[in-house]
């Protein structure tokens, strides 16, 4: 079984704060991490490696610093790592990103392509399904569990708003995974020690099978017109009083507002 896992390096958005005076983002010192849903996808792939001796390749598109999450993937147990990096990929929206990744995947062999459901810096949940379309693969998104039925079929559990669905999907296929699907393993100490001895393959736009017009800024239908920090609404009154008095204040305010 051959597996490719698409991962992304993202700023840890839970660490981003807003400057209360200027209303701008404070990005300094915000750590870069492997996107949580992608880590869930990698864990799912590594469990298939544990169980069926699957070969796991991780691929990421990003700046040279994204090497770090590939080392992390090695230390967790990935067999092969590819870094897609090229100025020609810059400025890509989800469609152009999916075209680049699909272009890389066209040159590879796989039974399952995994991706995280969405990245925490964009939260779009688009790149996985878009890649599946470019590659003509059946897709299941929001996957939380997976079993192998036979050589060509998987049984997957997809989370929905109301519960879940059990679906049967033919391989090769693309699955997008939730971070909550599993508890991703930590890097092992031995894996860390050897992570930098392994080779991360560096690919550029010439290494992949895609029309260059579909890449980067040129290949992106959507553009950011403007971006701005979200203005916080004006704070209301705050009281530091004992519990009895607090209850009195709450009840009277709810009455004033005709809520009760």
């Amino acid at each position, binding site marked *: 079984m051959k597996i490719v896992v698409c991962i992304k390096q993202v700023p840890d958005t839970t660490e981003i704060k807003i400057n209360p005076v200027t209303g701008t983002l404070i990005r300094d010192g915000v750590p870069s991490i492997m996107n949580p849903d992608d880590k869930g996808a990698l864990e799912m792939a590594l469990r298939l490696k544990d169980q069926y001796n699957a070969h796991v390749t991780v691929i990421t598109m990003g700046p040279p610093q994204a090497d770090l999450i590939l080392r992390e993937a090695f230390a967790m147990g990935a067999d092969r790592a590819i870094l897609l990096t090229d100025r020609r990929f810059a400025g890509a929206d989800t469609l152009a990103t999916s075209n680049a990744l699909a272009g890389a995947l066209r040159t590879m062999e796989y039974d399952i392509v995994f991706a995280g459901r969405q990245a925490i810096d964009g939260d779009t949940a688009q790149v996985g399904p878009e890649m599946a379309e470019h590659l003509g693969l059946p897709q299941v998104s929001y996957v939380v569990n997976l079993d192998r039925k036979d050589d060509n079929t998987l049984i997957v559990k997809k989370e929905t708003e109301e519960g879940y669905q059990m679906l049967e999907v033919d391989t090769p296929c693309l699955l997008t995974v939730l971070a909550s699907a599993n508890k991703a393993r*930590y890097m092992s*100490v*031995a894996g860390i020690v050897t992570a930098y001895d392994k080779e991360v393959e560096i690919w550029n736009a010439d290494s992949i099978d895609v029309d260059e017009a579909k890449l980067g800024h040129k290949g992106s239908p959507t553009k950011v017109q403007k971006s701005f920090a979200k203005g916080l609404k004006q704070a209301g009154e705050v009281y530091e009083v004992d519990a009895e008095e607090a209850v009195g204040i709450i009840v009277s305010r709810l009455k004033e507002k005709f809520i009760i």
Partner: protein
Amino acid sequence: MNFNLTKTQELFRQMIREFAEKEVKPLAAEIDEQERFPAETVKKMAELGLFGIPVPAQYGGAGGDNIMYSIAIEELSKACATTGVVVSAHTSLCVAPIMENGTEEQKMKYLPKLASGEWIGAFGLTEPNAGTDAAGQQTTAVLDGDEWVLNGNKIFITNAGPAHVYIVIAMTDKSMKTKGISAFIVEAGTPGFEIGKKELKMGIRGSATAELIFNNCRIPKENLLGKIGGGFGIAMKTLDGGRIGIAAQALGIAQGALDETVKYTKERKQFGKAIGQFQNTQFQMADLKTRIEAARLLVRSAAFKKDNGIPYSADAAMAKLFAAETAMEVTTKAVQFHGGYGYTREYPVERMMRDAKITEIYEGTSEVQRMVIAANLYK
């Protein structure tokens, strides 16, 4: 000269910090309160290979270095000093002497199981009448045919009980004084070897600390570690390495207390502003931070020397002395900054203060460290 961690060491720090934050910290108060050994954490650490960090891969270890090992102890202890000492006593006091003095057979027999964490290790040197003066050993080992027969008691032994493998120091020829001391490997369950009473301690209350009792305990002849009469040297060298671990533990406790205090003094308001805004707070905190960084450099420097085969005995002693006293100072001030809350168990700083104290005592008191440092100065 390069003060940066390598990429590998950085990656390791990222992992261990996350592990400590998510898996170790949530249990710290509970295991202290219940005075129980953190068996579930030990199992998790074993899976990651944390019990064999500096053990070469051919013996089932991770093949890491002592810098990584010191980072592990620091980060674990930042969250929970008990968890830190479980790994430290195992690695520095049991795995290291086997690695450094064991025969190939002994290494193949013990290291893979110790490095994988299947077996935990401990070290028995201290006796009721031989603490700081380790030469006064009263435990004896007598060769009888193909077996050594051990008699005597060891006290204050970390990991006693949960451990499977014990390095035991005993007198094989009293007339030779320190040159008549030898080291042995004793496995749990050997007839005549029992774990005595568990100590009730002020701090690191989750770590198992107990007495080892040897009553005509017979172990195979091949369980002698190193040469006959080489035990004192092994013990002293083992303690040199152990001091890096304890220094890292103290450093972690100090850093943990500082982090808690920064958080608290940012939030806590008195006289209309956060107490962290007062210059008195800021100046004291700046001093504590400076001491911690100095301690960290001493720890890393000692670990670096050990990794590179440079004599490090005095460095380890200075690291331990300074880090332990820093931990005591930082935690004491951390409790003070927390005021009444700091004295309650609602905040972790009181636990950290109790935990810090042991670092000035075990594996050589601060006075012993000064003796070691001075001995190097006047040799």
